[in-house]
């Protein structure tokens, strides 16, 4: 099973401040453990929302809203993608993450193709595949 772990932002991440060396070290150690256990498939941090944008869709006209976003609870600062044998294993790993101070980390199971069934037609799949391949090639 594949999971996405969503890490929320805070005032520091929004200000573009890098975490302290101590936190970085703890996080590096944790990431290493995840990789060594064969659990972590991907993981990235995100720039502050001041560099981001939202596009709002309403009555057929998309409206662009530039960052920063003010609703703190909507801000995601990073994510992991994990492969685990069960939800319990994912939770067990998450419990070991070096967070504190009331931070809430969200764990969500990722839909895989099988979960979509007939909703995703083969043309849509092909289009998506081409895009992903282009992305992969650029990596």
């Amino acid at each position, binding site marked *: 099973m594949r999971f996405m772990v969503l890490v929320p932002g805070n005032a520091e991440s929004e200000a573009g401040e890098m975490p302290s060396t101590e936190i970085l070290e703890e996080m590096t150690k944790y990431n290493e453990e995840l990789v060594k*256990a*064969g659990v972590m498939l*991907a993981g990235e941090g995100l720039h502050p929302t001041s560099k981001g944008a939202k596009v709002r869709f309403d009555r057929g006209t998309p409206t662009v809203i530039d960052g920063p976003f003010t609703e703190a609870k909507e801000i995601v600062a990073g994510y992991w993608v994990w492969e685990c*044998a*069960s939800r*319990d294993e994912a939770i067990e790993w998450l419990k070991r993450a070096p967070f504190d101070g009331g931070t809430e980390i969200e764990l969500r199971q990722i839909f895989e*193709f099988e979960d979509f069934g007939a909703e995703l037609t*083969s043309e849509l799949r092909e289009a998506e595949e081409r895009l992903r391949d282009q992305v992969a090639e650029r*990596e």
Partner: protein
Amino acid sequence: MPATATDRAIEAVWRIESARLVAGLTRVVRDVAVAEDLAQDALVVALEQWPRSGIPENPGAWLMTTAKRRGIDELRRRAMAQRKQELIGRELEILQQLDQPDLAAQVDDVPDDVLRLVFMTCHPVLSQDARVALTLRLLGGLSTPEIARAFLISEGTVAQRIVRAKRTLSEAQVPFEVPGRDELAQRLSAVLEVIYLVFNEGYAATAGEHWTRPALCRDALRLGRILAGLMPSEPEVHGLLALMELQASRLRARVGPNGEPVLLGDQDRARWDHLLVQRGLAALRRAERLSRALGPYTLQAAIAGCHARAASVEEADWPRIVALYDGLAALTGSPVVELNRAVAVTMAFGPEAGLALVDGLADDPALRGYHLLPSVRADLLVRLGRTAEARDEFVRAADLCANDRERELLLSRAVACGA
């Protein structure tokens, strides 16, 4: 009875901790069988206590401490039963080793323990079956019933295999160590072979009603990823991982709606797992960067990589695939590789060039009775418009083929060649 949330959590902890726990204990007691018994005892205690007390903050250290305490208690109890004040020989040794004050702290301190355990469970003194069972059990954290289900054999057979394997390791006094420079390459290749065998059993199941068994592929991938973390500078470790990630990326596309095999050319590439494609290509780059000369797994991964980058079979970089097969053929000397190379040559340079190579393999004793030889030859003859000869070859291939579904396909192709 359905497992409670705590039971499931304990199972999850076990999956995370068991390899490190068994490895750490093996270093201390110098016997993998004793180590596993102690670890299992600790698990039993956890199953009794954690539902009431909650899961401890550091479950790995808790299990280690408990395993140690159980070991000491058990040995003392046995000493009493034997009406002796002291244990003798081996048991005393184990007791002394267990009775160190900072044992729990040692678990995390020696990262090479798990690697030592890998080399132990894949030791050449064991049969291939025993290596597979012991590796899945001690490193994959799989239970005996899980291994039995995966390989469609009885639990009794698996249990016996594991018991015998542990006894063999004990009797042969196999040291708990990473092999030295002189034998590392050979021993590592045995480890990679075990992991790839598990993967292949899932990828192209040799037994059972299903063509693939993805859970086994996932177990092998996990082992491959763990090994890549333990031996980051070994190119073939990344090569094997790349090969498995790339092959696994096609797993979903390899099975049709009725469970029938779907071969590469007919696969819906949108069904490939593109996260695994990217991971596979990244592992391949690491392997290539670390290699002076590409090893057999890296070469196979590089061939898989050519397909992963292409939008269709026809658009793959076939001249490069031919070159990679050249390398693989030189390394392995395998006529099966030569046959694959002939197919690549056909794709790159046309069926006449391919046919010349296939004809050169016709008398190879290793390919006698191998149905893919006439099947490939038939394919080339069709492309050259020599349909009457093609039909005969398809019939020959069908006669040699052991798999019902594949035989039907070959016979239908023979019919399609006309009377």
